[in-house]
């Protein structure tokens, strides 16, 4: 099955195109019809875009429905608003509509069309024939067909696209002139307003065609000049088979394999988020084992860095940012840590991905136990807040992650949208209020999915005491008197214990050391008592579980475009509504659907995201846009990865290993003439800037002066192990907070559902930070730092230079580089200044900050 037919079938499957059997060939109507011809011109000319008259408040008093989705309303507004002055059926050319659109009368939107053009003529003819509204139902689109759907062309060639629409009344019409066209890869193909495609370069390009609010897709593939001899390629696994096949088809040569040092640096940064140490580099370079790369990958996947990198990734993806309105932030910090540690523990055990997600989505506070046991757990975990046991609380041993339901907006419509983004790789934000012009989901799809998120009692982030009280009143899930007593007693026990120790400390006047020790213990106990007292307050709102019936109502969205709701349960892409009894937890069905082997999104989303982690772009890119209109560059590869991953029981480590062991991952970033313009076919490795946390750690390791993190009360060794955000006060180190901010650690803002929440673009302040941040300069010259130590222990300049190269660029310098460095050191007044300058320079090279 070709990818196009997959797309087409998917579109059909989603039920908004309902093909009908054609009995008789009905006649195409004579004059232009409003909904069929005029509205599409509004779309084509951009009149009804969100930034123009499609805006909710319209533009300069003239409003159209967004993307022309409501032709009847558009007709009314066009004819009636402003006293009907926009149209003139007697003298169509004098209609304000045409005067404005053609720029003959002042129009802020500029000249959109010209008199005499095809668009203009259609508008004029419609006006001349009385500006009537047609029977809109007859012109609903049953099917939109682009030809050629798939094209093999060569650079310089041009060809026309033809678009045919089949309407509800059975008529078929060539609507090419009424469509908009957009190429998604302008390196390869350009398409003009009339659908004329011009092929400009080697590669492949999807072209999105839109007629009214209906999209369709065409693709084109342009091979390069045939090569005398395509390089012999060794496939390491099935990934290479697919990647090479397409490269051969395109006559694009892949780059060489990267060298061992580059491989080690790349794989260390990608898997564990850390640079290799000089010893590791030397050992690896000296290893004669032909399987050394595969062995290294296996070793790295067992290191704690692996779980830290991916727990961070999941915390980013899930917007793990928890905050209760108790103004102390203490419990919130503990819960962020618990969230992070729980995820990390699952990654360490290599829990199958589907199970891990199921244990998040299906989470309840009780976790299948009695309330008593749950409360014991909470007491323990809140007591942990201030103890050195932090991070080792029993929370990580819980079966389910009820904190999943403590995230901002985890329930309702927003909960569904977040879920779709995190686990299905879909963007439903726009579809909450309107069908997106380049996606397939309707508002009803989103709302019907949202009903699965309407029956969970959650604590969605900031909840005021008043709101919490309201929920308690509605649902009666607050604590019972017995439970409250139990907690109060626990708090009292700690408080009393604290008081006793405090008194003892006071008594030890003579022995200051003893008194201080006792006082410290007393304070710790008092803090625990405080924590439990707060827990009592929080428990009332923090309980997560299923609520029978629809106590929270049905999913509904109110936006400037109006209010809509859904009273049915329907999973994405399913034709039929689900039946869910009042006592049934709809999450069960949701998870069952997600885990079923024919779910089109769940496994695909994660394999594509993991791929994107290693290549900087997904097979579908952006990786969180698995829309049928955003096709994969390598559909067969994606399919095989997805199928194998499911066959491997959702084994994440298998996925990591398979990708990294491919020859494709191990390409050099040095390009060849045939692949230098390629961005979609993984012919060379595209360098990426180190992420914020990893950079902070790398700077610490290279200079030998690691940072100190408070991380919300408990120390962690590395920036990549910090569970929470700056806003949640989880960093506790101003210079690191600055680095996080300017190098783009995600803020985990539930409002911005996008994998791009992690900023990877360059910025002036980033360059200034590396060049001149006082804390970094101090690290370079620190008496306890790498350089000082090196100057003491090593007397030969060349060897010192070798070591600095290993600590920063994870390789040995070339002879030429060594020479440049030696000369630089000599040019300086003192050896120390010379080497400080050298280390500074190495940290400011591209090669340092890039994973290449």
């Amino acid at each position, binding site marked *: 099955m070709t990818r196009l037919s997959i797309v087409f079938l998917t579109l059909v499957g989603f039920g908004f195109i309902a093909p009908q059997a054609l009995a008789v060939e009905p006649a195409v109507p004579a004059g232009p019809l409003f909904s069929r011809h005029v509205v599409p011109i509004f779309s084509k000319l951009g009149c009804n875009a969100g*930034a123009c008259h499609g805006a909710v408040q319209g533009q300069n008093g003239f409003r159209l429905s967004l993307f022309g989705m409501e032709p009847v309303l558009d007709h009314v507004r066009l004819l009636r608003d402003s006293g009907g002055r926009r149209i003139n059926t007697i003298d169509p050319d004098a209609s304000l509509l045409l005067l404005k659109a053609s720029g003959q009368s002042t129009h802020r939107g500029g000249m959109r069309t010209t008199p005499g053009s095809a668009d203009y003529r259609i508008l004029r003819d419609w006006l001349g024939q009385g500006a009537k509204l047609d029977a809109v139902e007859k012109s609903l689109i049953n099917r939109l067909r682009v030809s050629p759907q798939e094209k093999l062309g060569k650079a310089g060639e041009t060809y026309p696209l033809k678009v045919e629409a089949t309407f509800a009344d059975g008529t078929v019409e060539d609507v090419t002139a009424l469509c908009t066209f*957009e190429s998604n890869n302008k390196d390869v193909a350009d398409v003009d307003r009339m659908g004329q495609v011009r092929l400009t370069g080697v590669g492949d390009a999807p072209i999105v065609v839109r007629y009214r609010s209906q999209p369709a897709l065409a693709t084109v593939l342009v091979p390069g000049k045939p090569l005398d001899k395509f390089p012999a390629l060794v496939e390491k696994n099935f990934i290479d088979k697919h990647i090479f096949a397409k490269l051969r088809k395109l006559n694009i040569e892949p780059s060489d394999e990267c060298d061992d040092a580059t491989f080690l640096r790349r794989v260390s940064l990608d898997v564990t988020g850390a640079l290799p140490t000089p010893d590791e580099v030397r050992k690896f370079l000296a290893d004669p084992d032909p399987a050394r790369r595969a062995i290294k990958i296996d070793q790295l996947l067992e290191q704690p860095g692996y779980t830290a990198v991916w727990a961070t990734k999941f915390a980013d993806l899930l917007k793990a940012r928890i905050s209760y309105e108790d103004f102390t932030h203490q419990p919130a910090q503990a819960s962020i840590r618990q969230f992070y540690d729980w995820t990390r523990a699952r990654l360490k055990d290599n829990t199958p991905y589907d199970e891990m997600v199921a244990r998040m989505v299906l989470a309840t506070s009780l976790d299948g136990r009695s309330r008593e046991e749950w409360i014991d757990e909470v007491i323990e975990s809140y007591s942990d807040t201030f103890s050195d046991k932090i991070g080792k609380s029993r929370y990580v041993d819980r079966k389910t992650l009820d904190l999943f339901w403590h995230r901002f907006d985890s329930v309702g419509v927003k909960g569904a949208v977040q879920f779709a983004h995190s686990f299905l790789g879909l*963007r439903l934000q726009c579809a909450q209020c309107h069908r997106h012009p380049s996606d397939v989901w309707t508002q009803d799809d989103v709302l019907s999915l949202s009903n699965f998120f309407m029956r969970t009692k959650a604590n969605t982030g900031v909840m005021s005491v008043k709101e919490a009280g309201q929920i308690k009143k509605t649902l009666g899930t607050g604590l019972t008197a017995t439970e409250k007593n139990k907690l109060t007693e626990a708090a009292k026990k700690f408080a009393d214990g604290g008081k006793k120790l405090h008194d003892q400390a006071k008594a030890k006047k003579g022995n200051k050391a003893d008194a201080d020790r006792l006082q410290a213990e007393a304070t710790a106990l008092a803090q625990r008592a405080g924590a439990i007292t707060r827990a009592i307050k929080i428990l009332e709102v923090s309980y997560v579980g299923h609520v029978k019936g629809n106590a929270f109502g049905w999913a509904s969205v109110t936006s400037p475009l109006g209010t809509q709701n859904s009273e049915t349960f329907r999973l994405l892409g399913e034709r039929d509504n689900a039946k869910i009894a009042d006592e049934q937890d709809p999450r069960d069905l949701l998870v069952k659907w997600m885990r079923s082997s024919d779910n089109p999104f769940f496994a695909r989303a994660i394999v594509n995201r993991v791929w994107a982690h290693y290549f900087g772009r997904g097979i579908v890119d952006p990786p969180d846009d698995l829309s049928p209109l955003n096709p994969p560059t390598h559909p067969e590869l994606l399919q095989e990865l997805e199928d194998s991953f499911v066959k491997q029981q959702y084994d994440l480590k298998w996925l990591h290993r398979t990708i990294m062991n491919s020859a494709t991952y191990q390409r050099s970033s040095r390009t060849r003439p045939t692949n230098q313009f390629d961005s979609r076919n993984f012919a060379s490795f595209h360098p990426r800037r180190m992420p914020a946390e990893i950079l902070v750690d790398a700077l610490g390791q290279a200079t030998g002066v690691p940072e100190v993190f408070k991380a919300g009360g408990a120390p962690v060794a590395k920036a990549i192990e910090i569970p929470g955000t700056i806003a949640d006060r989880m960093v506790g180190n101003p210079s690191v907070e600055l680095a996080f901010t300017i*190098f783009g650690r995600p803020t985990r803002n539930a*409002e911005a559902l996008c994998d791009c929440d992690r900023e990877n673009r360059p*910025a002036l302040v980033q360059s*200034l930070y590396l060049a001149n941040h006082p804390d970094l300069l101090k690290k370079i010259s620190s008496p306890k730092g790498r350089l000082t130590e090196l100057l003491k222990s090593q007397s030969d300049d060349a060897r010192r230079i070798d070591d600095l190269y290993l600590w920063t660029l994870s390789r040995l310098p070339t002879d030429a580089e060594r020479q440049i460095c030696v000369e630089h050191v000599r040019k300086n007044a003192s050896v120390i200044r010379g080497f400080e300058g050298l280390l500074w*320079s190495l940290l*400011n090279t591209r090669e340092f900050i*890039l994973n290449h």
Partner: protein
Amino acid sequence: MKLHCQSFQQNVSRRAFLKLGGAGLFGLTFAEVLCAQANGRQPRARQAIFIFLAGGPPQQDMFDMKPDQPLEVRGPFRPIRSNVPGLDICEHLPRLSRCAHQYTVLRSVTSRGYPLAGDHHAGLAWKTGNPRALRGTPKYPMYGSVVAKLRSGPSDMPNFVAMGDVASMAQGLRENYLGPAYDPLYVEMGSRDPRQVDPLTQIIVPQGIAPAEFSRNAELVRSLDQQSRQLDAAGPVISGMDQFQQQAFDILRSPRLREALALDREPRQIRDRYLVEMQGYGRLNYTSRVLAARRLIEAGVPYVYVDFPYWDWHGGVAENNSAGMASLAGLDAALSALLEDLHVRGLLDTTLVMALGEMGRTPRMNRNGPAARDHWGACQFAIMAGGGVRAGQVVGATDAQAAYVRDAEYKVASLGKTMYHLLGIDPDTELHTTDNRPLKLITEDVPLIREVL
């Protein structure tokens, strides 16, 4: 044009990028710069200073006085004539009364109807020109970030400098959909506590290294980069990094920024006009930010933000040494000196100056003492000057108690739109949010403030 720009921007290709050689700043910016300036009009304003009067400067006690009202409304201050007929202003703004021909008072710009009107967080709207709330709305960027994205100044100067914290009283403002690339460079100047030096200030001044040595080290970076040639032929990421690094090195090597911030280079008699001594308060450090802003404008920085604090008028403010009186004296000195200096240097015509607060103040005083008033969202004033603004006038009018606008009401968005317009930036330019939603610089369909054009 707009649709074309949008698709161009979204699809700036690797090939096109390499062919252009990373013209402009880097990839994306280049296209958007073209779009934003496509209207071809020659603007008069090329640079801007935004003075944020953190807190709520009271309209009835400054530029919209109501002397005929009872004491609890008119307050303890008396109006004095300004040199613009019809504009009487507070007796404690004597210097501003003598240069009223250089600015325009807008009495009718409000944040009424905005999510946080009358609240401290209304700064989110005043600083972005859009109805930004704490949650639930797009994270609109500050004016300065937008200008920094669409404009660039001299290569050895930052595009956007802020003094004081831009996010003061506007929680979360630093998060915006343009990302950190267009954040301001912070310059700590005149902070409340001199021991708290923002590390970002130190980042622009080389620490303990002679220019020659810095240049030598920077040269070494270049030669080492040239050695690892495999990273040459890459796309926007590396090219962008290179250009920003070049700019960073230029800033650090160049004396211009340092000199602009070295206020002691300013002749004493000129500098002292910006400074105010208040009994009990000593020297008001923050007024020197306005002087620094002028020097940064002279050095070519496109956009300067000044946090001009403490318009906290809940308590009694009319005693001689109160914070309120200090704010009045500070603004009177600094703003009048700024306008005059820009004028003398021939920069006023090309530099837009705006001063405004988060909100207005209640028509009636509270019981906390003279001139003490609480937050009021329905009405406030804004000052515009320079940059082609028609100066020496009053725009709009309020009712008898300066409580509600009676004439020519303009929303925050109109002010923002007018500012972009004056700077020659098309306010309809579309930028893309992190989830790729196209948004105009000013999202609301509002009129320009014609009176000032």
